[in-house]
């Protein structure tokens, strides 16, 4: 791994990040990258830190995980398993805030300045972690903010699956940053299951740095939260690296979820596959704003970017903006997006066989979302996501007899 590690003093970094946030300020809709999402409500709230108070909801845990870390209001409260995974302080110092750019991103600066706890996962070269590592974040209480900062370092030819879950109650604000560094040949499967309280705000940045021949999959599932922003930034910095970005947002009520992704093809022979799907009901608003940059030196790039959206109501809104910036002519890239409604013919077909209209709609919604859900490899998480989706949209989602809940 080519990580330069000179003096990198954490206190200094925090101080610089705090100063940078003061300079940048809260983003406004005047900023091109924030044109769809207004965070003025966040800027006006006098946020405070809080001690862990809530009990941890049992149904959000994953007892079958190889290791589990639980944070309440940003404070580490439990840690199970993970020998040889949680690394020493020097590792954190080496990697902390090296990839997620606090110079450009105000929320990353805010996080870097304020973060206290987070998961540091370091997988040694050649190690394969069986099962998955679960990191659970619980938010609790109005006016409380937290700034988890996670660092996942996968050594050469190592393999790991990490699942982040976000839940909570109240009008709190989670501002989270996760940095993933995939060394040569490393395989990382990362899940972010966002099931925050509907009154909560959730701003998340996932920064992925990939070395030669590494393979990273990111699955961003957004089911909860009132105001949500998911940023995924990928740097394909080694030849032959590949990244898959899967996203699913299923919204109702007045939820607002803004998905913002940037894939930077720096080196030749890299592959990126991106598929985000949105299901929007009520007066919800969803955004897909994806950019793929293929640099001059990134020949033989292969890239596909797709966003499909399903509108279930006449008052839901979706904006889809896939963008390609190609700076060399030896690439294979395509992108596209669709916005549609439930297929009336299919709905009639199901009803004509005796299936209740509400259940027929649910079956079709689930069929649409299933493309993302079904390819989630961790059984427990896949089942969990399907269940939460049912709960979030009871009027649309069917009972599935026989399925473990």
């Amino acid at each position, binding site marked *: 791994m080519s990580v330069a590690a000179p003096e990198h003093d954490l206190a200094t970094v925090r101080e610089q990040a705090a100063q940078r946030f003061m300079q940048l300020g809260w983003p406004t809709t005047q900023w091109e990258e924030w044109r769809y999402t207004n965070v003025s409500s966040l800027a006006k709230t006098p946020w405070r830190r809080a001690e862990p108070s809530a009990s941890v909801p049992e149904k959000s845990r994953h007892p079958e995980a190889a290791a589990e870390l639980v944070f309440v209001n940003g404070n580490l409260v439990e840690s199970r398993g993970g020998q040889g995974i949680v690394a020493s302080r020097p590792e954190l110092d080496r990697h902390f805030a090296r990839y997620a750019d606090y110079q450009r991103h105000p929320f990353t600066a805010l996080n870097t300045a304020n973060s206290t706890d987070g998961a540091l996962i370091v997988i040694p070269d050649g190690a394969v972690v069986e099962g998955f590592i679960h990191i659970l974040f619980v938010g609790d209480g109005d006016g409380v903010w937290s700034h988890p900062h996670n660092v996942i370092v996968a050594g050469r030819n190592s393999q790991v699956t990490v699942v982040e879950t976000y839940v909570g109650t109240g009008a709190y604000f989670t501002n989270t940053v996760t940095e993933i560094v995939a060394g040569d040949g490393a395989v990382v499967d990362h899940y972010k299951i966002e099931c925050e309280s509907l009154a909560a705000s959730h701003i998340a940045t996932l920064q992925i740095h990939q070395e030669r021949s590494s393979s990273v999959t990111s699955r961003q599932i957004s089911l909860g939260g009132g105001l949500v922003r998911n940023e995924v930034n990928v740097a394909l910095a080694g030849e032959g690296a590949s990244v898959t970005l899967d996203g699913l947002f299923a919204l109702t009520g007045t939820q607002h979820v803004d998905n913002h992704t940037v894939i930077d093809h720096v080196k030749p022979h890299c592959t990126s596959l991106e598929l985000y799907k949105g299901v929007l009901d009520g007066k919800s608003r969803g955004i897909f704003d994806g950019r793929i940059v293929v640099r001059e030196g990134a020949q033989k790039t292969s890239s596909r970017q797709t966003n499909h959206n399903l509108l279930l109501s006449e008052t839901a809104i979706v904006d889809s903006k896939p963008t390609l910036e190609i700076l060399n002519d030896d690439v294979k890239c395509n992108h596209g997006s669709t916005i549609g409604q439930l297929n009336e013919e299919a709905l009639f077909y*199901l009803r*004509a*066989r005796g*299936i209740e209209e509400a259940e027929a709609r649910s*079956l079709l919604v*689930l*069929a*649409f979302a299933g493309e993302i859900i079904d390819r989630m490899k961790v059984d427990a998480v896949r089942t969990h996501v399907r269940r939460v989706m049912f709960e979030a949209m009871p009027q649309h989602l069917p009972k599935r007899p026989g399925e473990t809940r």
Partner: protein
Amino acid sequence: MLDIKNLHAGIEGKEILHGLTLHVGTGEVHAIMGPNGSGKSTLANVLAGRPKYEVSSGSVTFEGKDLLAMKTEERAREGVFLAMQYPVEIPGVNNVYFLKAAVNAVRKHQGLEEYDAMEFLQIARDKMKLVDLDEAFINRGVNEGFSGGEKKRNEIFQMAVLDPKLAILDETDSGLDIDALKIVANGVNTLRSEKHSVLVITHYQRLLSYLVPDFVHVLAEGRIVKSGGKELAEELEQRGYEWIEQEVATAR
């Protein structure tokens, strides 16, 4: 079983059925034949309750109940089945899951015990043989990637599993080769009993050689203009529809 009286119906403000009257008794097989645009598919869709079709006047009773007052799914649960002219593909909705949900919705409504997974699979396997569908189909999406003939056979397969009181076949024979036609006819013949009624809507006489109807009706310009036995179908095959249309015109 089915009583249609003076039915006026259409789509998007355009009336297509102009006073159709038809009685289908229990255990009877009726064929409705007619040229394109005569209103055959409109009739099928109105009976099944497809949205956008509007009934302006007339009545349809099914086993004494007002069929037109029922929602689409209620009609199915009461025992009305429409084999669609153009079965839609529904990727992501699993065939077996869908059909089990459907058959259990129907059975529950009719006060019968719901099938468990094992019972259902056994029945599904038996019925698949009947229509010569490969078992691999059962775990695919509904009609996903099926050929035209496979889709039609899947309709008959679903009919066989759902065991409806009244089956309506909307041009199920169109586009089928002779082997598929025989399979479809065989599927319907298996359903035939003194408790089951069938309404076969078709443009051609072909299917009726294998699926011999008790009654044949000719639909033209939104009305039944002629009724008879199975020999009427043969006459139509030989002479076409023009002579009927002329008769109608003369009578006016």
